[in-house]
């Protein structure tokens, strides 16, 4: 068990890469250049791991949204049916977005607190890519990217964290402020801007130039460490201040998930967050993957599971049914 189980959800490293001389996707209208880029990407995947390759133009809206909900592609790529494509490793721990803002966005993900692992897997792919195409690079500015905010290493290292106690107490705001002063960014994963539904945040480096890859990883790791310790402390406070009222809230949320017959995404997210906190407090036992459950209950993923189109009302009913079943199977129960 990891030290920050129940706080850190996942770690991710993304590398932005482009082919020298070929205009960036937004400026590119040459079909042949597009297929060159796609083919080089796919050739690298062949050399690296079992994978699936999808062109956005060949996927239905539901399929594209489902991949987006699984955090494997960005919204921008999901709507790029002109020339967007993605390579996804069969284990879903690595994806390469093709023709997003840059020709290649290599991203490696793991479910623990291990940026180094994510970096080394992303850079394995990067090295193979560099063996197949001439990457745009200058000694002074590093990897050349469409947006100057990604120059240098082309790297974004981010950790997704679940911070209910710091959110409840409002201390998250001062933490966000101090993190921003360290040239890191924090944003809510669900919902817009700083309003983090599901109490889930992403902490990542803001600058990519002037630091080595290792320095970036070390900085983000160090800050996430501090934030996690603060969350642990705040959870203790929360328990002693709120006491039985908090337990009541958590168990009511658990009651909703195990008994509801109609469940919206928002209500699921809210209740599942409380249940996650309950699991951390030892109030609720659930051996399954609750973060995975939240993802599979997002609209498009739910439709994929159902195997047929469902309207919003039908989804709410099917979502409730799915959650009830999964929670029973995962030996859920109050301790």
């Amino acid at each position: 068990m990891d030290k920050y189980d129940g706080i850190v959800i996942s770690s991710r490293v993304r590398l932005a890469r482009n082919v020298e001389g070929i205009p960036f996707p937004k400026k590119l209208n040459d079909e042949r250049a597009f297929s060159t880029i796609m083919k080089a990407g796919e050739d690298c995947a062949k050399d690296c791991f079992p994978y699936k390759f999808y062109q956005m133009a060949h996927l239905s809206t539901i399929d594209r949204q489902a991949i987006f909900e699984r955090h494997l592609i960005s919204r921008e790529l999901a709507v790029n049916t002109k020339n967007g494509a993605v390579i996804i490793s069969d284990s879903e721990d690595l994806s390469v977005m093709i023709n997003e803002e840059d020709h290649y966005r290599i991203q490696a993900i793991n479910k623990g607190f291990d940026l180094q692992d994510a970096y080394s897997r992303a850079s394995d792919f990067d090295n193979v890519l560099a063996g197949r195409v001439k990457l745009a690079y200058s000694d002074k500015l590093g990897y050349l990217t469409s947006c100057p905010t990604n120059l240098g290493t082309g790297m974004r290292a981010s950790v997704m964290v679940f911070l209910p106690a710091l959110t409840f107490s409002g201390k998250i705001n001062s933490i966000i402020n101090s993190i921003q002063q360290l040239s890191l960014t924090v944003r809510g994963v669900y919902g817009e801007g700083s309003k983090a539904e599901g109490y889930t945040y992403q902490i990542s480096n803001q600058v990519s130039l002037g630091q080595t890859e290792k320095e970036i990883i070390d900085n983000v790791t160090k800050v996430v460490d501090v934030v996690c310790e603060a969350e642990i402390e705040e959870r203790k406070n929360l328990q002693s201040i709120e006491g039985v009222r908090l337990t009541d809230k958590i168990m009511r949320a658990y009651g909703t998930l195990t008994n509801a017959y109609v469940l919206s995404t928002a209500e699921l997210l809210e209740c599942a967050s409380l249940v996650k906190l309950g699991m951390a407090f030892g109030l609720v036992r659930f051996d399954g993957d609750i973060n995975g459950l939240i993802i599979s209950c997002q609209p498009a993923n739910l439709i994929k599971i159902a195997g047929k189109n469902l309207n919003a009302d039908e989804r709410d009913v099917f979502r409730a049914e799915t959650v009830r079943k999964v929670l029973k199977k995962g030996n859920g129960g109050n301790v």
Partner: protein
Amino acid sequence: MLCDKCKKRQASVHIKTLINGVYVEKHLCSECARDYDSELDILSPSGIVSSMFSTIEGPTAKRCKNCGTTATEFKRSGKAGCSECYKAFEDTILPIVKRVQGTLNHVGRAPSPVVKERSEIDQLRYEMEEAVRKEDYRLAAEIRDKIKALEGGRQDG
């Protein structure tokens, strides 16, 4: 109780959240609760089109020879059009880089190409897929036979 949002239908979903130490309660009807349900129309292609029009500027405008992006266009969008733009408008770009990144000195790693050696069978499989893609089925069949022979040889040995 009426829905907080539409104030028309009965609220059936009750969401209670502690935000900044204050309890915030939301009572929503199933209809409005669904708006939270990141609707399926999020994938409407809106942002993409506008960026595809390039600015019309006079022939004297400073322009990247490789991709046609002008310095003004770069200033407006904040995005380079290709890797050559960084040389073409160095004077315009470098101050912006300095502002967003705080420095102009890359210290991270440089590309370190690795060429993966394919096994003979992998290489043949690869060539077979290529042949199929080019619809050269005769070649594909020939390669398939070679693969079979190699695999057979392996089993016997």
